[in-house]
Structures are given as structure tokens and as C-alpha cells.
């Protein structure tokens, strides 16, 4: 026997998205597991998913039900999930009710019934739902009960392992009950919890232990949808190393902005565009995506502020080819607006899309909307979470273009409201200024890590075809105060004319030396 043959413990796929990754590859075969958690935390659904993913005609699953949720109701609700196949319920998945044996309070009879059914059915998977109910029916003295329970659990674990069964005991346990013997005997302990914070509910899973495997530590958020549980592993899949890329430039699609960035944003960078409401952040973000599509680069837009239909309608109004690009699988529009979102869930949704489309450009529109979409508990560590999200996305080589709304007074210059500028490689700011009695828009490139860039403050306009950058306001002082003043009053007329008449991307002519002398 080789060393490999001795040490191999085969694993079962759980059928639960993200769970295998958390478990370090799957469930060790023939393990004796405990699924613990409060009422409504998803224990029964998790067990059903595992059962339906693994049960076959030759290796069926036995699902023991006890007091608590009546079997009929359980089946009625569980069959609403897409993983529940009514065709195999009754054949590959068999339900056995233990209520009578449990009502008698005789653990021996319960064990006998379980063993008899296992012998008869020869299952690959056994679930006892709820194990806590069995234990709760013991009506002897506490000491006797503890002894009886110890023996019962030992014998049950022994029988099930001997019959080469992977088993799951489900129960409502509290954290302080971890001295219960079942916690000692169990090979795997999975703890499900849900917490309510204001109007949001956040579900989390913790793999407390898995013998023979290396699970991911920490709490992993999960969601229960029509497809069952979907777990979002806290630490995203590591690709081994960051994708290295030649610092190629990617056009922003905005006339004049490429010039300010010395040829476009750097591929694989995290770019942040910040500005007040109505400054055209989404417009520029869309132009960035569209420039990529025209260059043959697929893209993903994660929308947090409006419904995708509205977003798409606006984008289509600007260019009807947007819809075509989505249908052609070159562009994906992800809608992430619930108020109980976790950063991991958002990250996995975006990552899935990036991988599926082999995307080169991602737009997150906007960070402000993203923060609001998060459950309150995750807003507290928004900066840290965003750091992980951006780091994971850029590690794949994709360029992340984020928008962020800033609320600012004329004399108050801020890059972002979220104080997250440290996570970005490039920052472009937009703001309003008052000039000649008009509200004008200006933008500037503030930061491009490892790259030179223009330091000019330039006006820009939002046209039906998108944003167009105009001339630099080289003759003005105090632009960032919001109320610039012309350095040389006599140049006002020509400067104003230049600003209004200049072609986008072309700097206005500097005032002549004669004018300056005046």
C-alpha cells in the first residue's frame, strides 16, 4: 500500500454553492457531522441540498425526521427549492419518521430503528432532523441522561461509520452548549446563524471543525434563495499570484481624458472617479466600458443605485448597441441593490461575471450605493471590505473603475465621502465651479500610481454622446474653491471666449504676451 493510498480520504461534493470551497474541497466521506444553529437558520435546507446532490439509486439517502416540523410540511416547503427533485423523493431519497420511538423516550429503541433502516436501505447519507429533539426526550435524571446520551452518540457514530455512511445530525444548539458530547464525537461541526440588525438579516456559516480537511476559518455569509443556500466564502479564491500585466493603457472613451491620463488608465488598476450628483460619473463609467467593447474587451457593470432596467434604458438611449452587447455575452449588467448585502456576496457576483465573460473592465457604480446596499453590520468595516474586494478583482488583471459621490461645499475639497482613496491606483475628481455667473463642470487627475499625468484642471461638458473634456483653466486661480478668479482681468474676455469655443481636448490658446503685460 502506498502512502497516498493510506492517507486518501475521499470527499463528497455538497451541492451547496461555495460550501465545498469553505470545507477545503468537500465533505470527508463517512464523516459524522453536526449542523447546529437556531430556528430558521437553514439547517434543514442545507441538509436537503446535500442529500439531493448525493443520493442515487444505488446509494440512497435516509432522512430521519423526528418531532418538530411535521414531515408533510417539511416536504411541502422543501420541494419549493430548485434542487428538490420530487422524482427521487421516495426512491433515492427516503424519509423515515422516528416520532414514535422518540416519544417513548427510549434511546435504545431509537438507535435500533435507525440501525435497522440503515441495514435495510444501505444509504450513503443519513440525516437526523432534529437530533436535538431526540436528546430532549430523555426523561431520566441528568446524570443518567448524560451517560445514556454519551453511549447513544458513541454507538450511533460507530454504527453509521461502520455502514460507510456520511451522516448529519441537525439540532438547535446554543454556543454555550459546546460541552455536549455530540460536539466531541462529531467529525465536522457546521454552525449556522442569523442576526438581525435594524431591517436587515445577515446569515453566517462557520465551520468549527472538519477532521481530515482544512476548512476556511472565519464566518462566511450565505443567502437562502430559490436555489437553496449559497455561501460566499470570506476569503475569495486565491489565484496563486496576481495577474501581471504590461502596464498597457486603456482608453477611457472620453475625449480629452485620455490626454490627461497620458494615454488612458492603466490596465489592471483600480480607478476612482469622484464627483457631486449630476457631474456625469455614470456617463463616464459607461464610456469607459463602451471604449473597451469597441476595442474587443468585455466588461461588467455592477449597479447599486438604480434598477438595471432603468440603467439599461438610459444606456440604450445613448447607444442601442448596449442591449446587443449584453445578449452577445460581451457585457454583463449586475444588479446588486438589496439592503442586506455582504461584501463577499457582491464580490462573488462580480467575480463570477468577470470569469464568465473573461472581462477586462469592471465598473462599480457607485461606491456610495454599494455602501448603502450593505447590511448595517458590514458598513462598519466598509473600508476593509472594499480593500479586499478591489484587491481581489484587480488580482485577476481586470481594471476596476469605481464611481463615488461626494457631497461638498464650494470651499471643501474631498476625494471621496468614504475615505477610501487609499485603495485606488488612480483618482479622477469632478466638481462644480461658478464661472461668469454659470455653473460649470471641471475635472482633474489627482493620482496615477507609477505614472505621469496631467495636472491641469479642465472643463468638461455632458453631451448626448457622452462627456467631452474641454480646455484647461490655466488663467484662473482658486478653481478648487469653486469660485475661480481670472488672474489677469484683461484676459477675461479672450479666456472666456477660448473656454466656450475651444474644441474638446484642445487647450485654449494662452493669452498673448502683450495681454499678460497689460
Amino acid at each position, binding site marked *: 500500500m502506498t502512502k497516498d493510498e493510506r492517507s486518501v480520504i475521499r470527499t463528497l461534493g455538497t451541492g451547496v454553492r461555495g460550501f465545498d470551497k469553505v470545507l477545503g474541497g468537500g465533505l470527508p466521506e463517512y464523516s459524522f457531522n453536526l449542523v447546529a444553529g437556531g430556528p430558521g437558520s437553514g439547517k434543514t435546507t442545507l441538509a436537503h441540498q446535500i442529500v439531493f446532490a448525493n443520493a442515487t439509486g444505488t446509494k440512497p439517502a435516509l432522512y430521519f425526521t423526528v418531532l418538530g416540523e411535521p414531515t*408533510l410540511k417539511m*416536504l411541502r416547503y422543501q420541494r419549493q427549492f430548485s434542487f428538490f427533485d420530487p422524482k427521487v423523493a*421516495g426512491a433515492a431519497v427516503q424519509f*423515515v*419518521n422516528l416520532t*414514535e420511538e422518540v416519544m417513548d423516550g427510549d434511546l435504545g429503541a431509537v438507535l435500533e430503528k435507525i440501525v435497522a433502516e440503515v441495514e435495510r436501505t444501505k444509504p450513503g447519507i443519513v440525516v437526523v432532523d432534529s437530533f436535538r429533539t431526540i436528546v430532549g426526550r430523555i426523561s431520566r435524571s441528568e446524570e443518567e441522561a448524560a451517560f445514556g446520551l454519551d453511549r447513544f452518540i458513541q454507538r450511533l457514530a460507530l454504527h453509521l461509520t461502520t455502514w460507510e455512511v456520511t451522516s448529519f445530525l441537525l439540532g438547535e444548539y446554543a454556543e454555550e452548549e459546546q460541552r455536549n458530547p455530540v460536539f466531541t464525537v462529531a467529525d465536522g461541526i457546521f454552525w449556522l446563524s442569523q442576526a438581525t440588525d435594524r431591517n436587515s438579516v445577515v446569515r453566517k456559516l462557520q465551520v468549527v471543525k472538519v477532521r481530515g480537511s482544512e476548512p476556511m476559518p472565519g464566518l462566511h455569509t450565505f443567502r437562502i434563495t430559490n436555489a437553496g443556500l449559497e455561501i460566499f466564502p470570506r476569503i475569495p479564491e486565491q489565484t496563486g499570484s496576481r495577474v501581471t500585466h504590461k502596464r498597457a493603457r486603456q482608453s477611457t472613451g472620453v475625449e480629452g481624458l485620455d490626454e490627461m491620463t497620458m494615454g488612458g488608465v492603466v490596465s489592471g488598476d483600480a480607478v476612482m472617479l469622484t464627483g457631486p450628483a449630476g457631474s456625469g460619473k455614470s456617463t463616464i463609467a459607461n464610456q469607459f466600458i463602451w471604449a473597451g467593447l469597441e476595442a474587443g474587451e468585455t466588461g461588467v457593470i455592477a449597479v447599486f443605485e438604480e434598477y438595471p432596467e432603468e440603467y439599461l434604458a438610459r444606456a440604450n438611449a445613448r447607444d442601442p448597441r448596449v442591449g446587443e452587447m449584453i445578449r452577445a455575452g460581451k457585457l454583463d449588467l449586475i444588479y446588486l441593490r438589496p439592503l442586506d448585502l455582504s461584501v463577499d456576496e457582491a464580490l462573488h457576483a462580480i467575480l463570477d461575471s468577470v470569469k464568465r465573460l473573461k472581462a477586462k473592465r469592471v465598473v462599480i457604480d457607485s461606491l456610495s450605493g454599494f455602501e448603502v446596499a450593505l447590511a448595517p453590520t458590514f458598513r462598519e468595516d466598509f473600508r476593509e471590505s472594499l480593500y479586499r474586494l478591489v484587491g481581489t478583482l484587480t488580482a485577476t488583471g481586470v481594471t476596476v473603475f469605481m464611481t463615488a459621490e461626494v457631497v461638498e461645499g464650494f470651499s471643501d475639497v474631498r476625494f471621496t465621502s468614504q475615505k477610501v482613496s487609499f485603495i485606488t491606483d488612480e483618482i479622477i475628481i469632478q466638481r462644480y465651479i461658478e464661472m461668469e455667473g454659470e455653473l460649470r463642470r471641471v475635472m482633474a487627475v489627482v493620482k496615477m500610481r507609477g505614472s505621469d499625468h496631467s495636472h491641469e484642471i479642465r472643463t468638461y461638458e455632458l453631451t448626448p454622446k457622452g462627456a467631452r473634456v474641454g480646455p484647461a483653466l490655466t488663467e484662473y486661480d482658486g478653481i478648487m474653491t469653486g469660485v475661480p478668479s481670472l488672474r489677469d482681468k484683461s484676459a477675461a474676455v479672450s479666456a472666456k471666449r477660448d473656454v466656450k469655443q475651444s474644441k474638446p481636448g484642445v487647450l485654449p490658446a494662452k493669452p498673448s504676451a502683450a495681454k499678460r503685460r497689460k
Partner: protein
Amino acid sequence: METAQQLANRLLDRETNAGNADTTRASAAARAGEKLYRALSRWIGTDGCHALFTRARAQQLASHEPLDSLQLRPRHEPYIAGAEETIGEYGNDATANAIEAMIVAMIELLGRLIGVDMASNLIEQSLSDFAPDNSVPAKRRARA
């Protein structure tokens, strides 16, 4: 997919053709109901199964008077008690029709609760364990 009536007919036919010379339609129906109760109890528990039969009987009582003299006794053998007396009082056909109506109503009710496809599967699978002439599961009988 079979209807509740077709499934019930199959159960009754199986008991009628079980080979007992003294089998009447009513006694075959009572045996079918008995086996259905025992088979389904494995899946959904005796209480769950009894709840279904009780509701089915209540639904059919107005149109099938013999059901009033039948007793449903969970955790007892037989589960459907008083069949002979009911036959004596109402006759073979009326009793058989009453029990059959209760079985059909019970299958329909189960179908409404968990879906017709799954209900059919469960009944089909459960009954495959029972020999037509015995209420003890075939495999358990073989072991004995």
C-alpha cells in the same frame, strides 16, 4: 401521471386479487387502507398519516355514511377498525365505496400538500415494500 382514483383502484385491485377466497370488495378496501396507513407512516409518521386519514374521512362522511361506523385508531392494529360490523350494517358495496372514497380523498389531500408527483412516488415506493396479502413489510417478513 396517475390520478388519485387510478392509484386507489390499483391498490384495491391488488388486494382483491390477492388470492383469498373469502375476499370481498369491502374487506379488500379495508386492507388496502390499512397498508396505505402503515406504509405512509414510515415516511410521515403515524400522527401525520392519521391526520390525513381523519381529514379524508371527514370530507367523505356526508356522502358515505358507512364511514361513520369505522374507527381510525393510530398506533393500533388494525388501524381501520369496525370493518366487519360496517359491512354487516351497510352492506359490502356501500362499505367498499366508502373506504375507497376515503382512500382517494386521502391521496388527493397528500397530493395537494406535497405535490401529486411526489405523493404518487411515496405511495408507490411505500407499497412496493408490502406484499399484497400482508400488512408487514416484505423484507421485514423475510427476516422473521
